[in-house]
């Protein structure tokens, strides 16, 4: 083992380094995290002659706090204060290509890469110092950006860091950390509370003009006629950009563009088609549509027999519903295009825009700026495509395209409606056998990449069609994410029905299919526990072999006070657990609900989560994500469903798509974290969605004696279920 120890003398900070093999780097020949795709150290970390440290990530700040966590990782291994590091995020001209900021993978991919790159950079610097001073590297003292008093910037020269990363790194001792594992205030929050111009919505370039797009009224609509005369007198209107059914209005002032698009909407005539399914027959339609069927799990021979319990669960289309509609700024100049965007994937977006505009991708640059939180693939990329199309029509002028609320609600790609069926029975010893689960779902990713996944490209004179969808394979899965229970059952079989036809536009919404599959399986676990006359928590533990899974289940139950719970009238408790993707963070949620039988209103009074995200970098960052995930999942589970008629989306604002408001909040949300220093990062962002939904549905069943298997548990459905 390449073990190093740096031992300080004379009261200096003692920093000892040893090697901790992480799973990510442990495979032969494979570099840790995203280093595997971008192996040069100076693609990740640069040290200026002035000792300033710049760290580069291909991931983007989405409000999840990734910037702060990545700075902590780099500061730890570089032995500097977090404030000494400047972090550059996703930009096709400057940062590594790390594809999408998605899937709770930023810590595994970028965090792991930066952890190892920083440790290796520190080793390079130590070797340089050792040579210069004639002291063995083991006897050097490293503190606060200097080695034996020599600043890093004085050590690096030329191409010193332009070297390939090694598979193993001299990582610092996880039991002696200064920065990682401790709460650090988020670096992005101050600018947000002072109203500084940090969102792409705030970007204001010299000479910038404002555009709005005349969005078609429905998916199948084509522009028949647009009475240009009606627009001639609109004040400030600079240009009407038209390409097929794509129409954009460009004005000097922002509200002039709004007024122009309103006038254009009145002056436009569309041919519409009824392309949407009957909303009353949604789940029958999903079951009937053509599907590719795959047995994704089979253990033993799951059979039928006496005592089989069966249940069917349903989840409607649900929205990302970002508070700020999507926005982008484009500038086309000298045959090159720059787009400022809140896309989750600047590199794939660059390829899509280049394809749409028939430009070489080297002439397109996409720069991430923060937008409103996205929670997956919302309309960010579409707005970027709009900005690209309009900017090309106005060379030399920066163009800002801001979507209106109705566009975002009607055109963003939704989390797919899903259907699941579970069957199993409980044997004489109270254990589950013959577990069978089937899930029907569209794809959960239609991200660009291909130009055909950009909605504006559908409306061009020469349109781009969406390519045929493909399932995301196991072990992570898409619609079948978490469809295979982590529980050990005798004889089990899981089938994924990948529904290929997409009547509504769908893509990745936080947790993908895991939200629905965990809701289904964890609801069903309570139904089985009831058949076994077992306590739901004990019943889960009985079927869990993974010690970390057991630990979060026990921690959540204990913190909630599960064993001592006293049920009051109209109230009940519920539990939900999953290991996200069966390979990432462990999360258990216990909650209590109160049910108002007259109004049908359900409120979570208290929620408690236990989470194991592996090696914790910023505990408050993880707590914030879990708290937020719980509250958002409560909103999805109690309130949210996209509505539509046979042609149009009808939930086009907050009155048509209500979400949780302050009076609906729990009295308290508590998060208990289990830290695993030195273990791989597991990510957190999507971990709470499924367990929360299940805990809530189980608590409702406990409170009311009635189980609801169709989301959301809104007042109308609750009243119906309770017989009103």
């Amino acid at each position, binding site marked *: 083992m390449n073990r190093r120890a740096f031992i300080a003398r004379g009261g200096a900070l003692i920093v000892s380094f040893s090697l901790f093999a992480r799973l990510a780097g442990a495979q032969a020949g494979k570099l840790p995290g995203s280093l595997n795709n971008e192996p040069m150290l100076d693609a990740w970390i640069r040290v200026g002659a002035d000792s300033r440290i710049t760290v580069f990530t291909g991931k983007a700040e989405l*409000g999840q*706090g990734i910037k702060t966590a990545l700075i902590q990782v780099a500061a730890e291994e570089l032995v500097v204060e977090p404030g000494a590091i400047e972090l550059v995020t996703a930009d096709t001209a400057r940062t590594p290509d790390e594809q999408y900021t998605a899937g709770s993978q930023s810590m595994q991919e970028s965090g792991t890469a930066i952890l190892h790159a920083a440790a290796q950079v520190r080793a390079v610097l130590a070797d340089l110092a050792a040579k210069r001073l004639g002291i063995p590297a083991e006897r050097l003292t490293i503190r606060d950006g200097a080695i034996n008093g020599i600043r890093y910037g004085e050590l690096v020269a030329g191409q010193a860091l332009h070297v390939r990363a090694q598979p193993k790194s001299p990582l610092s001792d996880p039991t002696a950390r200064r920065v990682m594992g401790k709460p650090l205030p988020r670096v992005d929050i101050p600018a947000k509370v002072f109203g500084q111009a940090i969102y792409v919505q705030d970007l204001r370039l010299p000479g910038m003009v404002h555009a709005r797009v005349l969005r078609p009224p429905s998916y199948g609509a084509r522009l028949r006629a647009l009475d240009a005369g009606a627009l001639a007198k609109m*004040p400030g209107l600079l240009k009407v950009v038209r390409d097929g059914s794509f129409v954009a209005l460009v004005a000097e*002032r922002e509200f002039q563009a709004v007024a122009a698009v309103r006038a254009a909407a009145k002056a436009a005539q569309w041919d519409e088609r009824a392309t949407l399914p009957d909303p009353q027959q949604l789940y029958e339609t999903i079951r009937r549509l053509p599907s590719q069927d795959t047995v994704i799990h089979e253990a033993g021979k799951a059979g039928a027999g006496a005592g089989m319990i069966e249940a069917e669960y349903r989840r409607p289309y649900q929205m990302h519903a970002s*508070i*700020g509609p999507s926005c982008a700024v484009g500038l086309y100049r000298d045959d090159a295009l720059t787009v400022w965007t809140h896309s989750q994937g600047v590199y794939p977006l660059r390829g899509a825009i280049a394809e749409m505009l028939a430009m070489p991708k080297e002439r397109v640059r996409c720069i991430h700026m923060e937008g409103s939180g996205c929670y997956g693939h919302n309309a960010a990329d579409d707005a970027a495509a709009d900005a690209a199309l309009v900017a090309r029509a106005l060379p030399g002028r920066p163009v800002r395209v801001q979507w209106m609320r109705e566009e975002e609600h009607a055109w963003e790609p939704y989390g797919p409606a899903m259907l699941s069926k579970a069957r199993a029975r409980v044997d004489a010893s109270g254990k589950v056998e013959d577990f069978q689960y089937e899930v029907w779902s569209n794809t959960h990713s239609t991200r660009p990449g291909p130009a055909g996944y950009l909605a504006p490209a559908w409306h061009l004179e020469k349109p781009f069609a969406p390519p045929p969808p493909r399932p995301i394979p196991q072990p992570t899965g898409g619609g079948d994410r978490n469809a295979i229970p982590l529980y050990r059952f005798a004889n089990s079989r899981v089938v994924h029905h990948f529904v290929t036809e997409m009547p509504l536009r769908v893509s990745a919404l936080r947790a993908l299919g895991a939200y629905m599959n965990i809701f289904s399986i964890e609801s069903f676990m309570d139904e089985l526990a009831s058949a076994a006359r077992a306590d739901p928590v004990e019943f889960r533990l009985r079927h869990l072999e993974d010690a970390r899974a057991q630990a979060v289940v026990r921690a959540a139950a204990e913190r909630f006070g599960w064993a001592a719970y006293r049920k009051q009238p109209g109230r009940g408790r519920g539990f939900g657990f999953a290991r996200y993707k069966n390979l990432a963070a462990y999360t258990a949620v216990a909650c209590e609900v109160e049910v108002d039988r007259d109004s049908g209103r359900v409120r979570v009074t208290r929620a408690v989560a236990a989470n194991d995200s592996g090696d914790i970098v910023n505990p408050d960052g993880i707590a914030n994500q879990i708290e937020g995930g719980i*509250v958002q999942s409560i909103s999805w589970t109690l309130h949210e469903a996209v509505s539509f008629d046979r042609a149009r989306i009808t939930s086009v604002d*907050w009155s048509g798509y209500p*979400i949780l408001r302050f009076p609906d*909040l729990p009295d308290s949300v508590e998060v208990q974290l289990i830290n695993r220093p030195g273990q791989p990062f597991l990510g957190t962002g999507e971990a709470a969605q499924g367990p929360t939904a299940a805990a809530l549905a189980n608590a409702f069943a406990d409170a009311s004696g009635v189980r609801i298997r169709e989301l959301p548990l809104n007042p109308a459905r609750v009243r119906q279920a309770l017989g009103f």
Partner: protein
Amino acid sequence: MINLNVNGKTQQIDADPATPLLYVLRDHLQLDGAKFGCGLGQCGACTVLVEGRAVLSCVTPISTLGERRVTTLEGLGTPDKPGRMQRAFIAEQAAQCGYCIPGMIMQAQALLEANPRPSPAEIRKHMSPNLCRCGTHMRILRAVERAAREP
């Protein structure tokens, strides 16, 4: 030309009198605190104070304001001299994406100006018009409670 009193300064605005205040703040005055969320008065992201009361700037035409005093997030404080609500939101780390936060801060500011010691239930009721999608609500409530405690 329309005169507006924004953050203690009189501003001459060359815009259609029907223009909502939000667009004038952002596009004419480069004040980015108030955010466009819905343009329909449904989400609270654009909340500002008019004479100390919370107003949805996306549905308030500038012609209706007269000489009444408009206060935006920028009027509450700066990084060098943060307002108490801004200090409280930082202390509680009460943001994720942060897009709704300016509206939350202004809505909460209006509450404390009218009722310096609100109860938790009063805070929840008062904050009801404002939507947050990241689920930062519990921290927002803690921040408002902290601001009420620490004048």
